[in-house]
């Protein structure tokens, strides 16, 4: 979605045009983080080729780590962007929903025994079931928001509170551990391929959503509902259904992210799996310069926003920031980014850019 380009006014200068671009904020943040790391320690970008303990070739390095660990967040950012755009609200239950869908995957694979030696069901069945379950929970949220007209944050508060207990209940509060290495593929490596699988899965999701937005009217409909619900109804859309649909899509994203999460360790911890990931997903949408009050959205910007968050996390780990100071560092960066992405500030920056340009113009002329 590149509708932000249409805002360009031919009269304004290059700087102003750049500042007004929605992609500017996440890209600038990414660039600043990258530059900072490059100056502090260029070896940050070193990528090495090794073999892991089971003899698979693997690429490792900070960049690979960022792409790998940021996958779940990027996938969630896709769904969260759509929900935000259509409803003008956010789903705060995605972390809990990941616990549920992850728990479902393990339940199907383990059957009644929580420590099976062999898988009790084919993996694709487990994935299918978890997708259905996650979409049902998404549909539940969507129904509350679209048809009962409850504020999204309040509606999803229900699942946010209950989700992790439901996840534990699905597995009788036991801790399933899968010993079959074939399940670890989704969060690890495909034998013989040195790039972590989550990167492929995330890329796949991005391609799918890009195709959907390109070849269907979903993007247009979502935005028109978000901008003006009544006028989109007058134009023949069904706003309630479109809102509902965005939550179901987010449910699907949750199922994919949940699969990666549980596959990483072939197990689950109900209380901490994907903890606080909902806040990061919302932040990714905000960093992408999308209005949290709904309406226009830019999917690419959201996804880049997600990787910015992971880049920041990895950078903080890399520089061994004191544990007690970690939240403060994060907060400072987040405040900076959010302030920069505020329309007022960007307008101001654009104006300054214009002035500078005019001055140089005058000098050249004189």
């Amino acid at each position: 979605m590149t509708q932000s380009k249409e805002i360009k006014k031919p009269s304004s200068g290059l700087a102003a045009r750049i500042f007004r671009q929605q992609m500017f904020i996440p890209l600038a943040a990414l660039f600043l983080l990258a530059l900072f790391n490059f100056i502090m320690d260029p070896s940050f970008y070193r990528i090495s080729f090794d073999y892991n303990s089971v003899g698979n070739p693997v690429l490792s390095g900070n960049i690979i780590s960022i792409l790998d660990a940021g996958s779940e967040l990027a996938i969630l950012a896709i769904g969260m962007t759509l929900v935000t755009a259509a409803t003008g609200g956010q789903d705060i239950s995605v972390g809990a929903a990941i616990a549920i869908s992850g728990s479902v995957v393990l339940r199907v694979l383990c059957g009644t025994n929580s420590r099976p030696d062999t898988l009790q069901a084919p993996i694709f069945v487990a994935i299918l079931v978890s997708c259905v379950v996650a979409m049902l929970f998404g549909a539940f949220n969507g129904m509350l928001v679209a048809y009962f007209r409850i504020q999204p944050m309040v509606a999803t508060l229900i699942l946010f509170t209950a989700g992790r207990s439901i996840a534990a209940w699905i597995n009788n509060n036991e801790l399933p551990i899968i010993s079959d290495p074939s399940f670890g593929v989704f969060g690890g490596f495909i034998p013989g391929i040195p790039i972590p699988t989550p990167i492929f899965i995330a890329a796949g999701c991005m391609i799918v959503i890009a195709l959907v937005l390109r070849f269907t009217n979903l993007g247009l409909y979502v935005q028109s509902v978000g901008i003006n619900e009544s006028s989109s109804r007058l134009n023949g859309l069904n706003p309630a259904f479109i809102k509902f649909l965005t939550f179901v899509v987010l449910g699907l994203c949750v199922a994919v992210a949940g699969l990666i999460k549980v596959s990483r360790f072939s197990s689950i911890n109900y209380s901490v799996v994907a903890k606080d990931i909902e806040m990061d997903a919302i932040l990714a949408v905000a960093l992408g310069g999308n209005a949290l009050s709904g309406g226009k959205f830019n999917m690419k910007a959201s996804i880049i926003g997600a990787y910015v968050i992971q880049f920041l996390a990895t950078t903080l780990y890399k520089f061994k920031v004191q544990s007690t100071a970690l939240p403060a560092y994060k907060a400072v960066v987040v405040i900076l980014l959010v302030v920069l992405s505020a329309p007022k500030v960007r307008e101001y920056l654009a104006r300054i850019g214009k002035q500078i340009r005019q001055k140089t113009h005058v000098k050249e002329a004189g």
Partner: protein
Amino acid sequence: MKKKILAALMVATMVMGLAACGSQPAANTPSNESNAGGNQNSTEELIKVGIINNNPNESGYRTANDKDLKAMFTEENGYLASFSYGEKNEEQVSAAQKLIQDGVDYLLLSAADTAGWDSVLKDAQDAGIRVILFDRTINADPSLYEASIVSDMNKEGQTAVDWLKKQGLSEYKIIHIQGKMGTAAQQGRSAAMDEAVKNEGWTLVNQQTGDWNADNAQQIVQSVIDSGESFNVIYAENDDMARGAVAALDKANISHGVGKDVIIMGFDCNKWALEELYKQNWNYDGQCNPFQAEYIDDIIKTLESGGTLPEKTIIMDEQGFDATEITKEDIEKYGI
């Protein structure tokens, strides 16, 4: 047409409702009486305990704790127990008030929060109910409760660090993965390590919080590996984070466990973690004892027989397991 169907439906529900009203008391009265009769006989011998715990789904520790309590406080053991759970103080306080009204003999409490318990415990005292705290202490006057059974997190950390000292490595280069900052477990387990680093001249390659999360721990260890620094000990403050760390090591083909390149230390003694120990993939696991029921049972028996407790604060026995010494029986007995 629609209206007619609706009307018919409503009539039907009303009739059903009436029928239900009519039949319920008739069916219930005899069973109620027999219940009351049965209770009256048994309650004279049974000790009524009200147990307020945290959400059993919170962690493996809590699940084991809840199971242990449920196994102990049964009618066979002479107890009439009612359980309630709350993740927040308010929920727990209102549960406590209800239990006080029910007139229990003992109130067993694992408080969600340390503050805000004075008035409700005062009520309990006035009603002649004795309060026993387990697992978590509270900020209240000690006269308000009979006993407090706790884990000594500092001791847990100390036991682990002492074990590490005994390994006699030529140099100690440690990645220390902390729990959620500010929690009692984190503070206790970190304190011993910080102390040892200062006194023994050990090197902390990285000290970072993983918020009890395997994912974060993996990323922390990964970032150290990516920066090319060497290390030979991973001290993770719970099992999950140790598992995350191990995942990062496996990816980089760094050997770990008994007699290998990196020593792995965890806490909490989850069953699966002890199995890793048994397979010698890890080296050490420190216990955080969730089995408090036996201690509570002892206290109640002492108090019932008119005895007094030597100490108000009772610290549970907790041990650390070494991969070279652990047995199958240990896994069954101590694994949670």
